[in-house]
């Protein structure tokens, strides 16, 4: 979820309305754009807002927020038009060799800007947020802004060898090669991985071979610095997906236009494949979509008229044309890239109507509530264990190999491991339950004994044949520990447990490295192996720092479930 910072007074100025400095009230207003106040730094006048919608980059800046909220606040309605003021006559020649590296570029020239420090800070925040989120950390798109007066068109978007070209990157006075930038510049270190695998790196030059930028890493310190003196700005976006590149450019252009700038177009000359192709950017297109009023009412459960729907859409800053008695043609502003389906328009109608004006409805549907038969069995099993004075516990299924194997005196087996663990103690899913209980005991040595605990939980083991390559089973493990805890005590618990489940279990001698030899048995029902019971080996007690004997059993509830279904 994008979190953005806006300057409160600037926000008020753009909205052109005095707000009460009441965060709860502000929250109610922000609800229209799925936003929420996260913090307000009154001293610096900075408001931190979380925008939940990850598909609306147009809202991730103060200009866009104000643009949309003015509609919901009834200050302005209908579509806000953005038109190109003219042609800047700037051409950008694109080198064929960029096809596999970073093929697309889009540019615009914005003239007659009056930039304050606040506006510049806002643009930097917008650039940063778009690069990170919509641009997927500059992999998909990245934005550059330049002082247009210092640039000599036409521009060349081309490639260069890592050591061939040097320039002074933003924030540095001395020149560096592209290779050095990747090695030394903070942005080079942060984003270098995007280009490092190529032999040639992208570069944007003007006709005098001055470097504008090394996309997507860093701008030039000379041309790429925007100050309050800057009147005319060149905006450039490079990236891997044409549509995203064009959308990103539009977001920046609209913000600058909202700030009083006039947008001029540029011509991008591509020569990929055999055909030459020119694209004029920014490509500001208003799209349209049909909306069936019946559909609106069917989704919302309301009885809105065509006129009402049209009014609500205008509040949400769309334009509409009536097509028939129950259908509208909706004009969608170019920044609303989230509108993919009429359902997206329906939601905007509902938001403009206000959710809290919609009467909730509870209908009794003819359904039968039920827990699964497995849960039913599990609840019964838990009840029996609790009846025998065992305390139920709940532990994590994530664990580590040391707990599962070496601390249980076992050789490692194949288990389900995580490729990207967050901490070294949680690297895999547990393959059996007992280690979780041993860990629990080991964390409770100061607590009064005797301790009798159990857990019913999931374990996961690899299974090549399954669609998820794993097999999940429900297990129940129980342990008793006190100064004279032993086999007979736990066996009597197991007997009672199985008897309550109408099962006849046999204990067969076995060898298990976690248990004391001769005090461990396999639990069998009708020749089916369903678990293990015994006294924990002192070696394991030592590994878990335990000083009192522990007797335990672990049974497979999934197998017991299958058996109970057979009988």
């Amino acid at each position, binding site marked *: 979820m994008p979190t953005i910072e806006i300057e409160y007074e600037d926000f008020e100025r753009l909205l052109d309305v005095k707000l009460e400095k009441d965060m709860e009230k502000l929250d109610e207003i922000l609800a229209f754009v799925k936003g929420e106040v996260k913090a307000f730094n009154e001293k610096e006048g900075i408001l931190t807002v979380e925008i939940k919608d990850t598909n609306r980059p147009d809202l991730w800046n103060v200009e866009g927020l104000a643009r949309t909220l003015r509609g919901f606040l009834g200050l302005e309605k209908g579509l806000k038009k953005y038109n190109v003021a003219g042609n800047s006559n700037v051409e950008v020649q694109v080198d064929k060799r960029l096809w596999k590296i970073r093929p697309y570029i889009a540019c615009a020239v914005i003239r007659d800007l009056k930039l304050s420090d606040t506006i510049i800070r806002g643009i930097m925040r917008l650039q940063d947020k778009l690069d990170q989120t919509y641009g997927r950390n500059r992999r998909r798109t990245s934005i550059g802004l330049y002082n247009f007066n210092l640039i000599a068109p036409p521009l060349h978007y081309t490639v260069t060898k890592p050591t061939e070209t040097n320039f002074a990157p933003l924030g540095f006075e001395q020149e560096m090669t592209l290779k050095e930038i990747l090695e030394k510049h903070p942005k080079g270190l942060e984003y270098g991985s995007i280009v490092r695998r190529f032999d040639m790196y992208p570069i944007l030059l003007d006709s005098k071979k001055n470097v504008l930028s090394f996309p997507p890493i860093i701008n030039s310190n000379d041309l790429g610095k925007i100050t309050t003196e800057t009147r005319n700005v060149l905006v450039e976006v490079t990236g891997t997906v044409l549509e995203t590149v064009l959308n990103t450019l539009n977001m920046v252009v609209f913000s600058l236009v909202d700030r009083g700038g006039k947008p001029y177009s540029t011509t991008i000359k591509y020569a990929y494949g055999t055909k030459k192709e020119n694209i004029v950017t920014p490509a500001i297109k208003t799209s349209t979509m049909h909306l069936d009023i019946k559909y609106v009412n069917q989704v919302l459960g309301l009885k809105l008229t065509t006129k009402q729907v049209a009014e609500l859409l205008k509040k949400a800053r769309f334009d509409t044309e009536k097509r028939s008695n129950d259908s509208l043609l909706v004009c969608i502003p170019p920044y609303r890239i989230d509108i993919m389906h009429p359902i997206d328009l329906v939601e905007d109608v509902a938001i403009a109507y206000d959710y809290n004006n919609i009467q909730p409805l509870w209908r009794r549907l003819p359904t039968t509530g039920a827990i699964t038969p497995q849960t039913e069995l599990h609840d019964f099993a838990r009840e029996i264990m609790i009846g025998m004075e065992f305390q139920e516990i709940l532990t994590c299924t994530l664990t580590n190999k040391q707990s599962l194997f070496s601390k249980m005196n076992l050789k490692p087996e194949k288990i389900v491991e995580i490729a990207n663990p967050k901490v070294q103690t949680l690297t895999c899913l547990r393959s059996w339950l007992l280690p979780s209980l041993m860990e629990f005991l080991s964390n409770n040595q100061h607590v009064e004994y005797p301790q009798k605990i159990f857990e019913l939980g999931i374990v996961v083991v690899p299974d090549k044949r399954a*669609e998820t390559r*794993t097999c999940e089973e429900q297990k129940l493990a129980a342990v008793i520990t006190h100064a004279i805890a032993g086999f007979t005590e736990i066996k009597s618990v197991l007997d009672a447990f199985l008897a309550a489940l109408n099962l006849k279990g046999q204990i067969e001698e076995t060898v298990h490295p976690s248990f004391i030899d001769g005090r461990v048995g396999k639990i069998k029902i009708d020749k089916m192996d369903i678990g293990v019971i015994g006294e924990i080996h002192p070696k394991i007690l030592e590994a878990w720092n335990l000083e009192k004997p522990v007797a335990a059993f672990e049974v497979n509830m999934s197998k017991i479930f299958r058996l109970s279904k057979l009988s």
Partner: protein
Amino acid sequence: MGELRPHERKTLLVLKELGGKANVNQLTTKSGLSEAALMRAALVLQDQKLVEIRERKQTILTITQEGKIYAKKGLPERQLINVLLELKSEAPLKKVIKKAGLRENLVPIALGWLRRKGWAKPEKGYLKILKTPEKEGSDEKLLKLLGKKLSVIIENLDPEMKKAAELLKRRKLVEMNRKTVRTLEITRKGLNLIKRGVHAATEISQLTPEIIVSGKWRKAKLRKYNIKAPVAKTWPGKKHPYLRFIDEVKRKLVALGFKEMYGPLVELSFFNFDALFMPQDHPAREIFGIYFVKSPKHGNLSRYKKVVTKVKETHENGWKTGSKGWGYKYSVREASRLILRGHGTALSVRTLISKDLEIPGKYFSIARCYRPEVVDKTHLTEFNQVEGIVVDENITLRDLLGVLEKFAIEIAEADKVKFRPDYFPFTEPSVELSAYKEGYGWIEFGGSGIFRPEVTLPLGIKVPVIAWGLGIDRLFMMRAGIDDIRYVFTQDLDWIRRKGRI
């Protein structure tokens, strides 16, 4: 007077035998009574002013495993200095270490202490003696003593030895533990009572089968107990507080007509993301957003070929859903990537494609989910989600609000509710539910929405589907009066035992 219960009588007499004053340990050894029984008797005797109980805090010094080794072999610096003395006060460092047979990891420790004690110092590869050390320092004296006795009481040591104890503690060769020692002393009244003779009570204390069957109880007097006296603690077997709460939520959902669903923890990306119309480059699918299975990396989607094709087309161009789609090249291989389930909604997808799906149908699950988060007061990396869907031809946004309101009132016992627009990649419209509860204020309680057509149509569902998720952990925290989410998986047995009904 002069009548005491057997345990009380025994305690008093044994105390007399031990010279009129003894600690609990001595008394239990001599009397054979358990500590609990003895203390109960002592409390009664104290009530009757026959004995006085005094409590004293003691610090017990015990030797650690490492300390034991040094108690036998001598401290590492002593081992080195002894060799150096033999080698005539100056010798190559390596030679000294080798001759002393000191392990490598102990060398820096030994050298450090040689310098600190002013015995010797290393110089250009040589070890040079500075002064002839005393034969046995107080720290060594104490260590030797502990080597034999294993523990001593600090309060009984002289000041020099106390200092030595602190020193050894810093070296982690000993440990200190505080303990309460109770001493019993007979009072004048108690002595007088013994002089006059203490009789065993003729009143019956424990009612036995023999007394009942023989009818002796008719003549005997059943003694009155001090029913206010403290008794031993009993810990009941009970459900984990969180699971008990979850059971309650389940019961309420079943009562509202919801059926429980189940699905795997290790999941195919397809069910967690693709089928929910989350594009394959969505940030939630990166290593910061989801746990990936190490090996094998991919599962088998061949059972779902038809659905996968439709989902693929929906992502690429909208298929027949009326959507524009995401407009990128979809990879089936990526969809088969194995992950640990990131949200319970994956399960709803499985339910929707199941041949057992009923329409109208209401389903819920309490699903264990995983996300690569650093665990703190408000985040878990493994957590539970309560999720559900309602499938029916006629449902609308009003029904969704109705379901949410019902939950707030039935499950959170809220006084009133409020709805806000919300965002999920797979629902449109999306609604956030806030519930107001007296004493707690407004709390965010859940997220919900109507599944997008891009989700339902490729799964073969032609009717609307409401999906909701409840912030069950937050609700539990509120009910249990805790402000730390880690209590859900607490390792604190004492807390679980003591936690009453929530």
